[in-house]
């Protein structure tokens, strides 16, 4: 296990992050620093705030207190900053969220053409290259509805990569997949990790965490309860809540 890709440049900084849904305090004083090339796996029981936290990073969710800095850009009220951050941050969703009215290729070139103002030829060439990397170049002209879940998720990863992001956020990317399709998606993610992408993954794939993560973060009740490198995290969990959680998901 070589986790030496991380450089010293900070890609994501969360400082004293707090968020409320009305009265409900979802995120409580979250502090997290992610260096360039680092892979972070975030786990925890449902409702613990994992998804909400990574969705704050590209401002799909608004936070009420604290600071977020992504790739050196502070996330504040300035719409220019928010747009700049979104260009640097790719996101993969649990339910893929491909655009069903566009072909796979159109899904991939849409944002480069309309947001980055890239020539179509160039965008298509790049999209085909990335579709090849996720091993589905032959599906480029099909519609998302014609693909299996695993294929759709790989397209979604390619679509995000087409914007050439510095950071990738994965929000339970394999939770909606049939067991036999989980591997093909994880393989793509592992390959991405070995190429040095900065990644924050909310996932319960503990095998994936052991293989690629530099750090595993355990969240409960809106707080980061425990944070450690994978070996220590799985073999020697410090916190009682973590031990309980691990005993429950590693039983089978």
């Amino acid at each position, binding site marked *: 296990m070589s986790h030496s890709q991380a450089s010293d440049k900070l890609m994501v900084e969360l400082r004293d992050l707090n968020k409320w849904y009305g009265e409900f305090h979802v995120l409580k004083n979250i502090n997290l620093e992610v260096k360039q090339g680092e892979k972070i796996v975030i786990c925890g029981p449902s409702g613990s705030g994992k998804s909400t936290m990574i969705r704050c990073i590209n401002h*799909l969710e608004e936070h009420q207190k604290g600071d977020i800095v992504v790739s050196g850009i502070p996330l504040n009220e300035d719409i220019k900053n928010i747009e700049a951050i979104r260009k640097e*941050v790719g996101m993969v969703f649990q339910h893929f*969220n491909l655009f069903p009215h566009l072909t796979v290729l159109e899904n991939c070139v849409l*944002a480069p053409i*309309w947001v980055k103002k890239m*020539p179509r030829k160039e965008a298509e060439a790049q999209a085909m290259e990335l579709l090849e990397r996720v091993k589905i170049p032959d599906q480029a002209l099909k*519609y998302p509805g*014609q693909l299996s879940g695993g294929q759709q998720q790989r397209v979604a990863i390619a679509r*995000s990569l087409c*914007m050439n992001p510095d950071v990738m956020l994965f929000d339970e990317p394999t939770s909606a997949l049939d067991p036999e399709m989980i591997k093909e998606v994880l393989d793509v993610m592992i390959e991405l990790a070995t190429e040095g992408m900065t990644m924050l993954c909310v996932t319960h794939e503990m095998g994936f965490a052991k293989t690629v993560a530099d750090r595993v973060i355990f969240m409960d009740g809106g707080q980061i309860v425990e944070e450690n490198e994978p070996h220590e995290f799985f073999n020697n969990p410090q916190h009682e809540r973590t031990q309980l959680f691990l005993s429950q998901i590693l039983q089978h």
Partner: protein
Amino acid sequence: MSSDISNSGHNPEGGPAKPKAPPQNKPKFWNDPKKRSLLFQVLLLSALGFVFYSIIDNTLTNLEQRGITTGFDFLTEEAGFGIAMSLIDYTEASSYGMTFIVGLMNTILIALMGIFAATILGFLLGVARLSDNWLISKASTIYIETFRNIPLLLQIFFWYYAVLRTLPHPRQSMEFFGTFLNNRGFIVPAPVAEDGFGVVVFGFFAALIGSWLISRWSKKRQELTGQQFPVFWASLGLIVGIPLVLFMLSGMPLGLDHPELKGFNFKGGITVIPELIALWFALSIYTAAFIAETVRAGILAVSHGQTEAATALGMSKAKTLRLIVIPQALRVVIPPLTSQYLNLTKNSSLATAIGYPDLVNVFAGTTLNQTGQAIEVIAMTMAVYLTLSLLTSTFMNWYNSRIQLTER
């Protein structure tokens, strides 16, 4: 059953006196599903046939007794009454056939005007109701809930009697830039083309072709270089600008027939009758409220994940709406939108309540009264609405099939 019971006393075995028919026997023909359904169809058909026969027989006998001749000969007879508004030349000396054409054209006119305005207004209101802006969304909600829940006839009366009929008399007309508004309608100067106006018309069409070329060029350039070009504004500039420049250069070859107050009314110009305005306002505003709800439902039917994915890719709200949400919403919106278009067209027959000369008012009203040819007139009128409706839904179904999603 009773015989079985009385028999059982004499039957020491207690079993049935006679063995029942074995189950593999054919079922009774009324228990065979195929024959049974055939039987019911034959019964229904003969019942319908009888009803129609008696209606037709009854009608023919009655017509004969009253001495009314049937047939469409009346269409060539002179009508002898005037019509307040006509898109083609029509005088009292024209035939009843012409009253049909005039009424039909007026109906089509109000339907097209209504569909055009209601669609634009409806889409804007539907999007507005979902706006993040509190004021815009509440204003749209109030609009929709108000106009959707007041009877259309009442709204037509409101615009006609409460708004347009209370305007001043022609002598006290409100004047804006050479146009006049009074209780006889909205009177605007009529344009009269003079020598050289053809150049301006030519310029207009040249500009249309020019903007088509620009949109092609810009699409191509975007594909090659990624540069985006403000096609809409450039085309608008061309289409307005070129004819305007040519118009100035050729010495403004357009005369205006200004309306003038002569006696109690205006002479010259074009008069848009208040009945048309009232009906147009009422139909558009009423139907727009329904279209807005349809559009809102369509947008809400697009899952929030789509917007999130587009947002996460860095797309702006406007581009997300245009490229992701609206194309997907349309496939949900089109079928109910078609119903709204059909409703609007059919509702336009309420024109008769304020005297707008549509098909129902002119043909199924005055012409019917004068000729007494009730069956022919009503049949023709019904056929018109049926045809218009079927044409509209055929077109909309064709459009809908073009934008459907490919599922597998």
